[in-house]
């Protein structure tokens, strides 16, 4: 069945990025256990990179949690879309919620048949979960064995991962202008605010622009 094949290839491809997360997380002074727990428990790529990005840049735990959680709000909206398709309760709903991410929702909502929508969600959700966690461990172990992260370019891998995540979203002039404003605002705040604050403050831009239309 093609939905299972699609789920598997997407799961493997996305899961492999876990290597970049594991390596970046160790570089940002998170332990092996902390890096693996982020992938097991938070299990949302952008939020995980945000936590290590904010803490790695010297930000407080509060800024890290706030930034990561704002990036996680889209998963709540995915849940709204998935609930009527999956129709699960109790423990199954807990499991469904944990694997509600960009990829499982995307594969599911791309299917026509309700049965394929359900299959696509579970296969992609579990598939990404398994590969993402395996590759996180491998990346973290790899980064642990090398010495100075800067000598291996790992300090540039973090912003590269972020730009890779945001690039496909910069689809028109409006979003590019908003992105440019976010760069300007965050860098302007750097000398005057504690680390981490410049990042979370850009959420105001999203609220102001999104509020008005």
């Amino acid at each position, binding site marked *: 069945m093609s939905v299972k094949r699609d789920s598997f290839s997407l799961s493997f491809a996305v899961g492999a*990025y876990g*290597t*970049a997360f594991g390596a970046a997380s160790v570089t940002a002074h*998170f332990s092996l256990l902390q890096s693996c727990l*982020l992938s097991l428990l*938070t299990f949302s790529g952008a*939020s995980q990179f945000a*936590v290590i*990005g*904010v*803490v*790695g840049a010297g930000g*407080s*735990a509060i800024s890290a*949690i706030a*930034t990561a*959680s*704002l*990036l*996680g*709000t*889209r*998963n*709540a909206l*995915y*849940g709204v879309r*998935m*609930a009527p398709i*999956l129709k699960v309760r109790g423990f199954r*709903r807990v499991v*469904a*919620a944990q694997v*509600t991410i960009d990829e499982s929702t995307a594969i599911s909502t791309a299917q026509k048949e309700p049965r394929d929508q359900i299959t696509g969600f579970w296969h992609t959700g579990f598939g990404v979960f398994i590969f993402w966690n395996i590759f996180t461990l491998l990346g973290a172990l790899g980064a642990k064995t090398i010495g100075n992260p*800067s000598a291996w*370019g790992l300090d*540039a891998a973090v*912003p*590269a991962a*972020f*730009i*890779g*995540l*945001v690039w496909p*979203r910069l689809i028109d002039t409006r979003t590019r202008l*908003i*992105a440019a404003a*976010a*760069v300007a*605002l965050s860098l302007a705040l*750097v*000398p005057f605010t*504690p680390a981490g604050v*410049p*990042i*979370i403050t850009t*959420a105001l*831009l*999203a609220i102001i622009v*999104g*509020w008005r239309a």
Partner: protein
Amino acid sequence: MSIQWIAVIGTSVLAFALKYVGHSVPPKWLAHPRITRINALIPIVLLTALVAINSVTVKTKIVIDHRMAGLAVAITALYFKLPFPVIVLGAAVGSAIAYHFGH
């Protein structure tokens, strides 16, 4: 408890809560157009700010260093629509080369 532990636990708890809320509240609560619009913009501003801060700052100072070479490689790779692992690896290689030239 270290900053890292607080961040790991706090983020994990809230990440799951957000996912679970989506599956459990009446859809109309979260389907408001204003919420959908703001929600679509949030990743754009936060991820872009994370690019900027992680590329050119150290603590609370602007610092231009070898990471710029990595960022330039990443942008070039994105322009040519290369896949994500190539972008991240390319950036690491570019940055590492610049680092060794500078030291």
